[in-house]
C-alpha cells in the first residue's frame, strides 16, 4: 500500500521552505511571491483540514468550500458591521481583532459542519459526496441572494486587521502570521492522527462496520472529524478574507470544492502536510497556464487526467469504494 508517510525530515524541509520563502523572494527581486505564497499557505490550511475528513476518515466530502466561505463571510460581515457602526467599541473590537474574529469564523464554520455533518452522515459513499455538495450549493445560493452582503459581487473588508492589538496588514507580517497558523495546523494534524481519536478515524476509513462492532459509535467520531475539518476550512476562509480584504460567494462555489478535493488528492491523502503540497502544485500550475493561454482550462484538464491515470490506484486507493 502506497502511503505518504509524514516523515520528520519532510516536515522540516516544508517548514524551512515556508520560513525562507520571503527572504528568497526578496533576494531574487520577486516580492510578489509573498502574496501568492500567502494564498498557497491559506489554501493549504483549507486542504489539510479537508484531508481530515477525506483522507483520514475516508469520507468523500465535496462541500468543503461551504465552510471556507462561511468562515470568510463571518470575518467579512463582522468587518462590514464594524465599519457601519464606528461608535460601537464592541463591534470595532470584534471586526478588527483577529484574535476574536478568526476563532469566531472557525466556530461558525464548525457549527455549520455539525449541522451539515449530522444530516450527511446518515449516508456514506456516493450519497455522502452528493449531499455535502448539495449543502454547499444551498449555502452558496443563500449568500448569492443576500444583497446586504453584496450578493454575488461580494463585499470588501474595510477594517485594518489587528492581532492582539498589533497591525498585521503589512504583507510580510501577514505572511508570517498565516505561516504560523499553517504550521500549527500541520502539527495539530500530526498530533491528531496518532491520537486515540485519529486511530479510530483510521479504523473507520478501513472498515467502519468492524469499528462499530468494536463498540465505537463511529457516527460521533466522524461527526466530530467533520466539524473540526469545517472549522479548519472556516479559519482558512477568514484568513483569505483578510488576505484579499474581500469575500464573495464564489468562495463557496462547487468549483472551489472541486479544487480543494483535487489539491487534496494531488498532495496525498491521509498525510499531514500533503494538502500544502497539493495547494502549491495546483495554484502554481493554474497561474502558469492562465498566464500562457486563454484556453488554460484545457491544459489544466489534461494535466489532471494525466495525474489521475499515471497514479494507478495511487494515493487515492486508500479511499476505496466502501459503504
Amino acid at each position: 500500500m502506497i502511503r505518504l508517510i509524514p516523515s520528520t525530515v519532510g516536515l522540516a524541509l516544508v517548514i524551512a521552505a515556508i520560513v525562507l520563502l520571503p527572504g528568497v523572494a526578496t533576494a531574487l527581486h520577486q516580492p510578489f511571491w509573498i502574496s501568492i505564497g500567502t494564498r498557497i499557505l491559506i489554501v493549504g490550511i483549507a486542504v489539510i483540514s479537508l484531508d481530515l475528513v477525506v483522507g483520514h476518515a475516508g469520507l468523500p466530502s465535496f462541500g468543503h468550500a461551504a465552510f471556507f466561505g462561511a468562515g470568510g463571510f463571518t470575518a467579512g460581515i463582522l468587518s462590514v458591521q464594524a465599519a457601519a457602526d464606528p461608535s460601537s467599541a464592541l463591534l470595532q473590537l470584534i471586526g478588527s481583532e483577529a484574535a476574536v474574529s478568526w476563532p469566531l469564523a472557525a466556530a461558525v464554520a464548525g457549527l455549520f459542519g455539525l449541522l451539515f455533518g449530522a444530516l450527511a452522515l446518515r449516508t456514506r459513499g456516493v450519497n455522502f459526496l452528493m449531499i455535502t455538495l448539495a449543502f454547499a450549493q444551498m449555502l452558496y445560493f443563500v449568500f448569492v441572494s443576500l444583497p446586504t452582503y453584496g450578493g454575488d459581487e461580494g463585499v470588501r473588508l474595510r477594517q485594518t486587521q489587528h492581532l492582539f492589538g498589533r497591525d498585521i496588514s503589512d504583507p510580510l507580517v501577514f505572511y508570517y502570521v498565516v505561516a504560523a497558523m499553517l504550521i500549527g495546523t500541520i502539527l495539530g494534524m500530526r498530533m491528531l492522527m496518532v491520537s486515540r481519536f485519529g486511530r479510530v478515524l483510521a479504523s473507520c476509513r478501513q472498515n467502519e462496520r468492524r469499528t462499530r462492532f468494536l463498540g465505537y459509535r463511529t457516527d460521533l467520531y466522524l461527526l466530530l472529524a467533520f466539524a473540526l475539518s469545517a472549522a479548519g476550512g472556516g479559519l482558512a476562509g477568514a484568513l483569505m478574507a483578510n488576505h484579499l480584504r474581500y469575500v464573495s460567494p464564489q468562495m463557496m462555489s462547487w468549483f472551489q470544492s472541486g479544487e480543494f478535493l483535487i489539491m487534496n488528492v494531488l498532495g496525498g491523502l491521509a498525510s499531514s502536510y500533503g494538502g500544502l503540497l497539493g495547494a502549491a502544485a495546483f495554484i502554481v500550475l493554474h497561474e502558469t497556464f492562465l498566464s500562457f493561454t486563454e484556453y488554460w482550462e484545457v491544459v489544466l484538464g489534461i494535466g489532471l487526467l494525466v495525474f489521475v491515470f499515471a497514479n494507478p490506484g495511487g494515493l487515492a486507493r486508500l479511499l476505496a469504494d466502501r459503504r
Partner: protein
Amino acid sequence: MGISAVKPHLAFLSAALAIGASVAHAQSPVKIGLITTLSTAGGALGQDMRDAFQLAAKEEGGKLGGVPVDLMVADDGLNPNTAKDIAERMLQHDGIRLFTGIIYTNVTLAIVPDLLRAGAVVIQNNTGPVELDGKNCNPNLFGSAWHGEAPGESAAAAANARNTKQLMTIVPNYTSGLEQRGAFKRGFKGQILDDILVKLNQTDYAAEISQIKLRRPEGIYMFLPGGMGISFMRQLHQADIGDIPMYAATTVSEQVTATVGEAARNVVGSAPWTPDLDNPASRKFVAEFREAYKRTPTVYAANGYDTAKLIGSALAATRGDISNIAAVRKAILAAKFDSVRGKFAFGASQYPVEDWYMTTVSKDASGTYVPHNAGKVLTAHGSPYADQCKF
C-alpha cells in the same frame, strides 16, 4: 518596444531572466497593466476591450500619445484571487503604476483598493462600482466608461422618451441588479406595476413570463447581463405577449442582438456610444476595428479605445514621465483627446459627464438584427454622487 499581446509570465521560473531584462532597457517604455477577463464564459467583454485598446496602440506603432508603451495584458480568469496575484506581480515586480482593463465588479472590489493604496492610477473602463464613487472616491481612480448607475438612469430616460406609462422590472437578486433597478426607478416617470427578482444566472423564466403576461405591462425594464438576457428574450418571444419594449440599457450588445435574432427586435438599449454615431473619431474607429477584427465593435470596445486614447493624451502631456502622479492626474482629468463619443469630460468624482443615446433594433440588409441609434436621451449626464466626492 511593441506590444506583447498576452505576455507570458512564468512567475516562478523566470526570476533571473526578468532581472536581466529590466537592466537591459535603461530607456524603458511606459508600462501599462491591463488586468482583464479573457477566459471563461465571461471573457467576451474583456476581449472586445483588449482588442480595441491594442488597436489604438497599433495605430501609433506601439505608442500612445507619441510615447512608447509596453502593454502587459493579463487574464484574471474572473477570479479575484488570480487578479490579486497579477496585481501584486505587476506592482512589485514590473513596477507598473498605470492600470486599466478590469471588467467585473468582483475583481474591481478585490484589487482596485490595493492598487490605489500602492499609489497607482487606475482607469475603470467598464461600469464603475457605486461603492467607489461619491464619498468613497479616490483621486487616483478614474472611470472612462460611465458611472455606476448610468445604465439604469439611461434606461429610464429611454422609457420616458417613449412615453411609457407603466412597466415591470426584472433584475437578478444581487447588488448590481438592485442598484440598477433603483437608478431606473428614480428616473422613470411612469408607474411600476411590479418588480420581479430572479436568481443570478437563472436559465428558465417560464414562471416570471407568465406573471408578466398576467399583468400586461407596456414595457419591461430588464437588467439581465450575459446569457440571462438571451434566455429571457428567447423565452419571452415564445409567449403570447405581443411586442413589449424591453429597456435593457447596455446589457444587450450588437453581438447579442445578432445571436438572438427576431426575439431581440423589441430591445430598447441605451449607451453613450453606438457604432453609427456620426463623428470623425467614431467613423475612423469603427472602420479600423472592422478591418482589423472582422466584426463590429461593441460599446465595450469603444470604451477600451477611448481609454487608450485618454492614456495617450496623458502620456503626451507628461512626455511619458509618470513618476509625478499629480501631473499624470492633471493630464488625465484634462481629457484632451478625440473621443469616439464626441465630447468627453470628467465630473467631480472622476467619472465621465457624457450624452446617452437610445437604440432600437431592426434588421439590416443582410437580415441581421442590429441596434441603431434612435436619438439622445440624456445630455451631459454625470454621476449623481459627484458632489459627495471630496479629495
